[in-house]
């Protein structure tokens, strides 16, 4: 049977067919759909975990019991669980262990363009790179086999254009796997230095065996056609190579670590010249050069951004670069939705001229004009520590106009330890938790505060006030961000407080809200065209002939513009 699947959906199908028993993730574009699709298979126990490290450790435990496991994340998620990942390389896999990393060349929805192939080398685990949906599915099964055969986690690396491209996939049946059950193995699983020293030798031996495997791996495939040009490539770049060099000989590396250097050498010998076509870092190229194999790669192909057939053709002089059109085209940045509960908070931060250390989520858009209300955004969970550090470094100079802003899902992800730090180290930091009752940015996933699991079961909804009080924050206040006066009053009071405080701005994401409110109208007579309402950055409001106008098909009736209007012209 055939199906039309994205790379992410294909990974999920692969998990099903490979007999995966347990799967977990924290959402993150472009990896989110993997667990969403896995949740549709009742044969696999699947969870949204608070963060990538909890997801990873949960899967390690299941693997201890002999279960086959899969943990998925976006590229930066691997940073969060790197500690566990490196240790599990030494400990190995009792039940097959697949770690899926979805990298994001071009940074379509990420803060960096890190190339996670380096992680395979650093942690000494094998790396598979599918080049299509079909391979994304098939490689999960191969990863499980390799994992169990060589006693190692396997890194499966997708990129945005594999994760989010759809193609036709041949489906197979599930190969059911029953976990063997728990067997104690002190020397392997307790990596005390004495044990770890032994394990490190095991890992180095394993790498040698894996290299032999990689040299003969059937998916490290040579397509021999015309040997005047030979191209070594992997992942999505293989597809661009086929378009641009239809007659060249190609060596496609499905397993690029451990690096099959002898295979590459044999291939290179046959070809007059060798090109390396890969996105982002020169991973294959450097491995070739270490082996003394001459090749041309990043001196021609861009290192920054994603590739496409035209970019590859232009890089090798096969096509002229298209001249950019000279028209001035206004940008169309993503925006906070009409009625977004984050808007009122950022409007207030802007009004109060606060310094706001920020975090990652839809609310990062509050940093864009016209709200301009975020001063930093480093990575998930950084906001609270950043504010605390600024406060300690500059003291009273900044203390009373500083706030950390963090989303509810992000707070559960990595916001709790830094809040403990504030309390423990006698901080006075003010933290604003934007509780929109969901993980909105990545498409509305459940989290520990929503009362529902990935598999759709009801569960406890962690209460943010209880959590903060439990940590030792004495001052916690809940506000409604649709009430601008209250929002302003509480925030301006709390930033001045000489103790840690948490303000929870609580309002459901407008895209999930079932409550329908009447769209507002601007009274043309009364409107003076003062443009104050435009400072909300609401997509439903625009200026036409020097008067504000509300698009009633977009307006959700949140009333913020009415509250901002000095003439009472909106209602």
């Amino acid at each position, binding site marked *: 049977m055939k199906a039309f699947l994205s790379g992410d959906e294909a990974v999920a199908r692969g998990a099903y067919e490979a007999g995966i028993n347990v799967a977990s993730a924290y959402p993150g574009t472009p990896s989110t759909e993997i667990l969403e699709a896995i949740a549709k298979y009742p044969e696999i126990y699947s969870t949204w975990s608070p963060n990538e490290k909890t997801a990873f450790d949960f899967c390690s435990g299941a693997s201890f019991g002999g279960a086959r496991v899969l943990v998925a994340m976006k590229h930066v998620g691997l940073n969060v669980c790197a500690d566990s990942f490196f240790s599990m390389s030494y400990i190995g896999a009792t039940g097959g262990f697949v770690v899926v990393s979805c990298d994001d060349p071009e940074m379509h929805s990420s803060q960096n363009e890190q190339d996670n192939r380096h992680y395979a080398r650093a942690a000494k685990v094998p790396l598979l790179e599918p080049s299509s949906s079909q391979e994304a599915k098939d490689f999960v099964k191969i990863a499980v086999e390799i994992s169990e055969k060589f006693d190692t986690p396997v890194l499966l690396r997708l990129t945005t254009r594999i994760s989010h491209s759809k193609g*036709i996939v041949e489906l197979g049946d599930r190969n059911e796997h029953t976990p063997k059950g728990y067997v104690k193995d002190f020397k392997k699983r307790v990596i005390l230095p004495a044990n770890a020293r032994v394990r490190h030798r095991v890992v180095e031996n394993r790498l040698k065996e894996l290299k032999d495997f990689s040299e003969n791996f059937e998916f490290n495939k040579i397509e021999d056609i015309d040997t005047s040009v030979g191209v070594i490539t992997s992942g999505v770049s293989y597809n661009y190579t086929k378009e641009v060099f239809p007659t060249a000989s190609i060596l496609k590396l499905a397993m690029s670590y451990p690096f099959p250097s002898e295979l590459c050498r044999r291939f290179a010998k046959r070809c007059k010249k060798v090109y390396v076509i890969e996105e982002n870092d020169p991973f294959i190229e450097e491995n070739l050069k270490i082996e003394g194999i001459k090749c041309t790669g990043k001196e021609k192909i861009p290192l920054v951004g994603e590739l*496409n057939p035209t970019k590859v053709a232009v890089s090798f002089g096969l096509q002229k670069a298209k001249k950019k059109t000279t028209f001035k085209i206004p940008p169309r940045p*993503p925006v906070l939705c009409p009625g977004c509960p984050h808007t009122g908070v950022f409007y207030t931060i802007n009004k109060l001229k606060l310094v706001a250390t920020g975090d990652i989520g839809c609310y990062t*858009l509050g940093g864009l004009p016209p709200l301009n209300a975020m001063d930093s955004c480093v990575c998930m969970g950084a906001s609270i520590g950043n504010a605390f550090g600024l406060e300690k470094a500059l003291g009273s100079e900044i203390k009373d106009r500083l706030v950390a802003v963090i989303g509810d899902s992000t707070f559960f992800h990595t916001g709790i330890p830094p809040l403990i730090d504030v309390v423990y180290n006698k901080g006075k930091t003010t933290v604003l938790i934007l509780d929109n009752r969901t993980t909105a940015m990545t498409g509305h996933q459940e989290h520990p505060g929503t009362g529902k699991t990935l598999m759709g079961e009801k569960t406890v909804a962690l209460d943010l006030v209880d959590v903060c009080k439990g940590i030792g924050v004495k001052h916690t206040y809940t506000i409604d961000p649709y009430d601008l006066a209250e929002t302003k009053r509480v925030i301006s009071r709390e930033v001045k407080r000489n103790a840690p405080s948490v303000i929870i701005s609580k309002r459901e994401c407008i895209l999930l809200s079932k409550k329908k409110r009447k769209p507002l109208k601007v009274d043309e007579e009364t409107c003076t065209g003062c443009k104050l309402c435009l400072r909300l950055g609401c997509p439903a409001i625009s200026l036409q002939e020097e008067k504000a106008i509300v698009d009633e098909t977009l307006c959700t009736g949140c009333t913020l513009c009415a509250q901002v209007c000095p003439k009472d012209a909106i209602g």
Partner: protein
Amino acid sequence: MTKSILICGVGGQGILLSSDILAEVCMNSGYDMKKSEVHGMAQRGGSVISHVRYGEKVHSPLIGEGGADIILSYEKLEALRNLSYIEKNGTVIVNDMAILPIPVASGEVEYPQDVIDKIKKHASNLVVIDGLGIAKSTGNIRTLNVVLLGVLARHIELAYENWLAVIEERVPKKTIEVNKLAFESGYRSK
């Protein structure tokens, strides 16, 4: 021969649903096909692009600059923004509609004048469609999506019945008739 179609517009306009329908029609017509788009950030009212490619054997999921046989744009400015994708002899189909980006709505920048004329300068074949007008004439403006697919269908060689079959399957039951009408109106528009 591989055919490359770029569908673009503004987040919320239903671009991804349209490209899903197109992809399914390609597949049901016996072609190999790939489609690619970006989720996440782009959906919050930003620019959206979907790449669809079909043929005997499709390798790249992405269309490169200068590689699109057809650009179907749901909004004028987005057609202008993505013009570098069009192939020399390609066809640009534009829905004659303006959605103001926030920097325009808030009065910081202006929506460019004469967008259609500017597109004309770079596209050897240009089709301008009053999609909303046609959708209104069917009695349901929510059929805009399907109207534009009807226009697209006239420019590619996929069987009319295959389109209808997928549309029937994809739209809510109660709206099958009006969507069929919308598709036909788009297909027959000048």
